[in-house]
């Protein structure tokens, strides 16, 4: 699976964490404001602010790194986890339909979820919080239809 060529590989968008980034910005802003005003902050406040910022950055990057989804010529691959890896490889032939889940806030920032449903009564693949999910669906549909066309048995004369 490792050596297969990925036509498209996606991870969670960083826009997912915009509220967390906003928290970091507000903390840095507040500290800078008090520094500018000449109010000195005690070391405890500075240390916990610094730790909070580091932990948030670490958490968001790990969370983002944890899952990825890829499209190959014949299938869609879902990989979850860092230490305990769980990889699913689903052939295009078992995909029944795709749907886009994009609430208002995510629509403004142009990221969202894509549900890949399967014919069989088993779990669907949920591609969570990716950038430009509409374009991803279009690309996936194009690749699937190309793949199905090549397997249809029609030959060019």
């Amino acid at each position, binding site marked *: 699976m490792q050596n297969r060529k990925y036509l498209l590989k996606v991870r969670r968008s960083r826009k997912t964490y915009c509220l*967390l980034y906003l*928290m970091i910005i*507000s*903390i840095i802003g*507040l*500290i800078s404001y*008090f520094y500018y*005003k*000449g*109010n*000195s*902050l*005690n070391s*405890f*406040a500075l240390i*916990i*602010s610094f730790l*909070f910022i580091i932990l*948030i950055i670490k958490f968001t990057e790990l969370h983002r790194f944890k899952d990825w989804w890829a499209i190959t010529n014949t299938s869609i691959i879902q990989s979850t986890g860092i230490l305990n890896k769980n990889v699913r490889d689903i052939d295009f032939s078992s995909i029944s339909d795709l749907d886009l889940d994009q609430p208002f806030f995510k629509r403004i920032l142009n990221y969202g979820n894509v*549900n890949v*449903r399967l014919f069989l*009564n*088993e*779990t*669907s693949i*949920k591609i969570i919080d990716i950038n430009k999910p509409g374009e991803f669906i279009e690309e996936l549909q194009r690749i699937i239809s190309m793949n199905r066309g090549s397997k249809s048995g029609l030959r060019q004369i």
Partner: protein
Amino acid sequence: MDFDKYNKKHYYGDGYKKKRFGKKTFIFLVFSFVLVTILFSAFYGNGGITGNVIGSINQNNSIEIKTSFSVPEVSLDDEYKEIVLTLNKGGVINLDDKKITLEENENQVILKNFKGEIKIDENNIKYFKGKISEIKINNLPVIKESGKLKISLSQNSKYSFFQIEEGVYLKNVFFITSGNINVGEDSLNLNSEKVEIKNYFGSLTLENKKLIFNGLVESINIEGGSRKVTLSK
């Protein structure tokens, strides 16, 4: 049949929603704690003295003060013409690559044209690092022929006297302290009250566990117990 419902439940488990909410709430609570700590530290903490901005003071809008306060933590980061301090026995002065251990019980050190950072409290010099043009240790001068000398003191060096005779500028500082302020002929006694000093320019002396400001100030706010006093011209 609603397969989607089944799928979501199967894939994420029953506690999925609850778990996510818990994580978000936890992060939000930690964030709120950090914010409250910053605000509390800025407005109600013991504060401290942080002087690092070169500024100017208008003498027409200023009043002359002399204080004798209990010592909060003092942090300075600036350029001073002369610093005089008395270090106790065992203190170590690092000058460029040389290490000087002080042997006398009381050692007078005079630093000329200091530029750097100082953190000092009631008993110890917690941090002292910078550059100087000249140093006199017990009246013995050490001068570098060209350029400046790098100086640092060992952490928590004990001192009995510290003075910056002139050129201390504090833009806006606050701290909780006891002691007294003399404004002209009037004197005001403080007992664990919050003092906010705006635009101070003058000298800073730490001696006998007292912080002495002697200079000009634009305004002083004193807050504590039931009183709130503002001193300004």
